[in-house]
């Protein structure tokens, strides 16, 4: 759904009353399901957590079971930005740029203590959590998290994706969220 119908203000019909509404909701559900099972990650691995992501990709955990084994190093093709590892202040703008380059719908997982909050690196050079530069949907604690936890995080995003309304990305709340991060 591109931004073609951005300007048109639509009044949402109550779901399930009219046929179209019913159609729209079930359609939304189908697309949600599709998205849920096809979340292509952009592994933004900077340090230790990246190594655990390798383990998640590996045979023992196998992220492909969730349909997410195609790592898209190009942000255009990715659905989730998995920020794994310390993000130094020098790196902050890069994260933001990558996020900006991603196409909607996009989700962000902050994997590990460093990406979520800076972890033990409460220092002058480390960004204290990537939620200072991009909006984060799911936080995964751990330093580094076990692959199980990374998969947990992925499943949380799956839940988000499955239940997300198709219009959410055009909603004023979402625009406001992006604006608060200075993302056009």
């Amino acid at each position, binding site marked *: 759904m591109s931004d073609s119908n951005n300007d048109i203000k639509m009044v949402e019909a109550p779901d399930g009353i009219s046929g179209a509404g019913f159609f729209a909701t079930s359609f939304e559900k189908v697309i949600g399901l599709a998205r849920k099972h096809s979340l292509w990650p952009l592994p933004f691995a900077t340090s230790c957590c990246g190594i655990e992501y390798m383990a998640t990709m590996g045979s023992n955990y196998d992220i492909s079971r969730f349909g997410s084994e195609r790592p898209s190093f190009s942000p255009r093709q990715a659905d989730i930005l998995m920020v794994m590892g310390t993000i130094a*202040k*020098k790196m902050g703008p890069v994260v933001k740029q990558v996020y900006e380059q991603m196409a909607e719908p996009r989700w962000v997982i902050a994997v590990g203590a460093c990406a979520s*909050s*800076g972890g033990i690196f*409460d*220092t*002058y*050079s*480390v960004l*204290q959590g990537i939620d*200072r530069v991009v909006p984060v949907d799911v936080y995964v604690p751990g330093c580094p998290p076990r692959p199980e936890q990374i998969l947990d995080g992925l499943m949380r995003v799956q839940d988000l994706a499955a239940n997300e309304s198709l219009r959410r990305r055009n909603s004023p709340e979402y625009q406001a969220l992006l604006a608060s991060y200075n993302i056009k």
Partner: protein
Amino acid sequence: MELTNENVLGKIIEKFGEENVWDALNPDGIMTITTNRETILPLIQYLYDDEELQIRFLTTMCGIHYPDQKDKELCTMYQLHSFRHNYRIRIKVYFPIADPVMPTLTNLYATANWMEREAYDFYGIIFTGHPNLVRILNIEDMEYHPMLKQYPLEDQTREDKINTFFGR
């Protein structure tokens, strides 16, 4: 020749004189000598060239900050290694923070390039003759040299910690 601290020190003093090399210590089995800015380059060059010593590997190099030592606030430490004799030596140079200038080693050791940039980045030590003395790890327009003791470690924007509690 088996290298021992004594005969290496003897050779060095013979070459450079007592006035340029002093404070020979042995804190951990590695001889530590102190020298001055003028002697450091010739000294390292001599250690490299001398056929007996063959100290030809720069193991590491770093800056140290002593805020309380008047006119000797900054120090650079060079640690060299002779693979042939498996002999290590540590050389220190102290100088005032008001005049943080050191000669560069890059002409002798290629590896000194980044080490010196790191020392510059952390302590603001200026290595004259360095081909590209810019910050290496931090952002280029950072306004201070973070490893100097007076600057805080913590990120000043962090909000979720109560500093007073067990504050370090």
